[in-house]
């Protein structure tokens, strides 16, 4: 049961991330997200930092309340958000933006697909006309690009 909650939260966090990215970061909080697209980077705030707060703040609150209530469901919801956040930073920093010189030559079709899709997202320097707002799940076309044999 608890495992199910964690899994469910993890999956819905991908949806929440898509919505937040699509309508908030490319919406009224575009000022904070812009520098990650055009790499102007003047300010001290970048998108990752904003996502950091979005993942960390509710996770901390839920884990805390959950432990107080003797590891109630809240704890496992918090755990799901934490794990999603960890997966997000892991995938986004390491595979997509190639922060490390590891896995650069990966042939894993899933990794190639999400990297390709995120690169596509970065292609648009403007606030409007974005695509591929998801992170761990991207439009089918990108999976088809790498999963299907040519």
């Amino acid at each position, binding site marked *: 049961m608890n495992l199910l909650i964690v899994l469910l939260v993890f999956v819905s966090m991908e949806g929440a991330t898509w919505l937040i990215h699509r309508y908030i970061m490319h919406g009224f909080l575009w000022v904070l997200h812009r520098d990650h697209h055009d790499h102007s980077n003047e300010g001290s705030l970048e998108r990752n*930092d904003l996502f*950091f707060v979005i993942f960390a703040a509710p996770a*901390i609150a839920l884990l*805390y309340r959950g432990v107080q209530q003797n590891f109630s469901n809240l704890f496992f919801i918090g755990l799901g958000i*934490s794990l999603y*956040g960890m997966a997000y*930073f*892991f995938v986004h920093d390491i595979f997509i933006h190639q*922060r490390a010189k*590891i896995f650069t030559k990966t042939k894993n079709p899933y990794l190639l697909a999400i990297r390709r899709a995120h690169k596509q997202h970065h292609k648009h320097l403007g606030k409007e006309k974005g695509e591929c707002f998801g992170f761990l799940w991207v439009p089918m076309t990108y999976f088809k690009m790498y999963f299907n044999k040519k």
Partner: protein
Amino acid sequence: MMPYTYILINFFTVVICFLASFDRRIKFNKLFGTYLLSATVVAIPFIIWDIWFSSMGVWWFDTRYTLGLVIAGLPLEEWLFFYCIPFACVFTYYCLDQFFNLAWANAFNTLIVFTAVIFLSVAGLLYYDRIYTLLTVIVTLVTLCYLHFVARREWIGQATFTYLILMPGFFAVNGILTGSIIQSPVVNYNPADFLGVRMITIPVEDAVYGYSQFLLNIYCFTIAKKYINPEP
């Protein structure tokens, strides 16, 4: 032999790194002055913390293991601790950085800070009444967030990796101090002031405390080095 216990721990922590400093490929001896300066800057707040906690009885020292010289409530050996331990740490970091490319570890910066922030915040909120736990959590949180978001240091992952490599040394030194091999601990903790979770004999707080002390030492050392010994 017993009164020499703590001073010998300090001595053995330093001696190998000290001798290796003169190696032609390392030449860390040229950075001794730089190290002393940066270590002092970091030591000041940590020694104040130490004096404060000792006076409150959060922890206390068994003076049977020390030479007997006590300054501001701390044995001389404890003062030296804030130079000897960071010396081995900074030296190790310096050498690893010089001989290996550890930049890959920095890809984990955000992940490390994210995980630590969640873990530490929850621990701090739950156990705010244990002063050692609370203060360790606050200091580490502030250190990590400052380094990552404000100072934007790129080496957090690399430093964390080095800290993991130093773990056997940490377990040896802190293990003896907390009574692993000797009959009774050199440093004793008030059970009401910390979680009571011990790794063998070492309170978990010690590992987190050591981590923030380590990060701050690297931070100050790299700054001091940049200004005093700029690379040619």
